[in-house]
């Protein structure tokens, strides 16, 4: 069969690949709030006066930044499953199987949190202390200082770094295909095994990834221009 009909014909694999692309984008998007949010929490704890808390957070970051992302995913994925099995066993509950997509998001978020916490910490350092001191002396509550004064400035400084991590995250979703999530790369593998045309389908998958990353690059530069409106 021709490449065209394999992709776009009535029994073509095109729709399945697109479905996979949606799952890939969904995985990455679903990870962002948890990954970046947890990273921010980690950063706040890294800047806390408690030495123990700082050491624990630094250890977390060092661990996940120092081992392959594939290994992190395996550890979180299988570790979670074992943890759930042990807990249900302890309380005599029936066996629960994790949803692969949810487990994938948790695993990706664990890695993303470690990467992004470093970006958050360095952008905390970039916001002058005088800002929060001034806000405090104006009588703002500590939480207000953070939300109204520090965070908006933080976001501006952090955006390029977070953008890099988003790019890494987008590509890391492909590792989830080795577990059980039907993302773009897994769909391409299925298609190439069924048709014995790996060049065509992996080529198509690569092209789709390229389009996704080009679009996200455009989105990033739009966002960066937007948060830098008042500066230039």
């Amino acid at each position: 069969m021709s490449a065209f009909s394999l992709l776009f014909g009535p029994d073509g694999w095109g729709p399945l690949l697109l479905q996979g692309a949606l799952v890939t984008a969904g995985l990455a998007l679903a990870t962002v709030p948890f990954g970046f949010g947890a990273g921010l929490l980690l950063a706040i704890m890294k800047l806390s006066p408690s030495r123990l808390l700082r050491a624990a957070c630094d250890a977390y970051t060092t661990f996940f930044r120092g081992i392959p992302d594939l290994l992190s995913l395996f550890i979180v994925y299988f570790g979670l499953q074992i943890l759930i099995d042990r807990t249900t066993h302890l309380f005599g509950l029936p066996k629960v199987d994790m949803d692969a997509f949810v487990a994938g998001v948790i695993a990706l978020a664990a890695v993303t949190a470690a990467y992004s916490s470093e970006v958050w910490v360095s952008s905390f350092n970039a916001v002058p202390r005088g800002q929060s001191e001034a806000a405090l002396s104006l009588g703002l509550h500590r939480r207000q200082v953070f939300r109204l004064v520090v965070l908006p400035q933080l976001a501006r400084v952090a955006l390029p770094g977070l953008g890099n991590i988003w790019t890494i995250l987008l590509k890391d979703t492909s590792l989830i295909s080795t577990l059980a999530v039907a993302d773009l790369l897994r769909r391409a593998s299925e298609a190439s095994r069924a048709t014995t045309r790996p060049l065509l389908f992996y080529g198509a998958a690569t092209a789709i990834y390229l389009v996704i990353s080009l679009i996200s690059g455009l989105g990033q530069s739009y966002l960066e221009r937007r948060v830098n409106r008042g500066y230039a």
Partner: protein
Amino acid sequence: MLSALQSVAGTVLNLGLLQEWGWRLVQGLIVTIQIVAISCSLGFVLAYPISLARRSRNLVLSGAARSYIAFFRGTPLLCQLYLIYYGAGELRLFLTSAGLWWFFREAFYCCILAFTMNTAAYQAEIMRGALNAIPKGEIEAATALGLSRYRIARHIIWPQALLVALRPLGNELIGIIKASALAAIVTVFDLMGQTRFIFARTFDFTIYLYCAILYLLITETIRRASNRIERRLARHKLAGIIAATEAAGAAAAPVPIRRSPAALLRGRA
């Protein structure tokens, strides 16, 4: 409760596991180091011409380099690896007649090819950034003094560019070490591959933790070493910054400054 604690401790520190399977981990580690050493150095050699092409005024050259970089940085490495490894299988007849099948038949060589081309794209961008960081005036001044192009490169451009590129290059080396775990997915028995093999035999989760410790040891060593080297090479710049920091620190900031001198330098550059 106590038995639960014991079982947790037994899971975390299963030394019998290491006794039985440790040798396989070491073998895997050697393969990982081979993959990283070969693809990293080949990638370095390949990256320089790419970065020069990227900076070239010739539109065809710079366009080609730009697309090469965009392709390899914009798509997942795993996807590139599949494309080469499984794609070569489809082209078997052609590759055999071209006398290249012996190369593409081995997953190990396919990994090296994929990692080399991938890291070349990243290293080319690092070199481009480092070359761009050198003030034009220095090169103009050297030219005005009548230095040859080779001497300008050797004595003016490279020493400064290397200093800028050192940290990102170290990060890239760590990146390749981490990425090399993908080789396990295409049947190479590197550290990750051996770990998966052992897990399939024993169903003992601890082996993943031992594997993680081994990776951590390597990547942390490299990170610390590259920090050291950077600090040593940049000591002429650091002296001024440390003095300035101390002067500023005496005047203001009752809180201790958590950023190291090296971090300050990075902030400047």
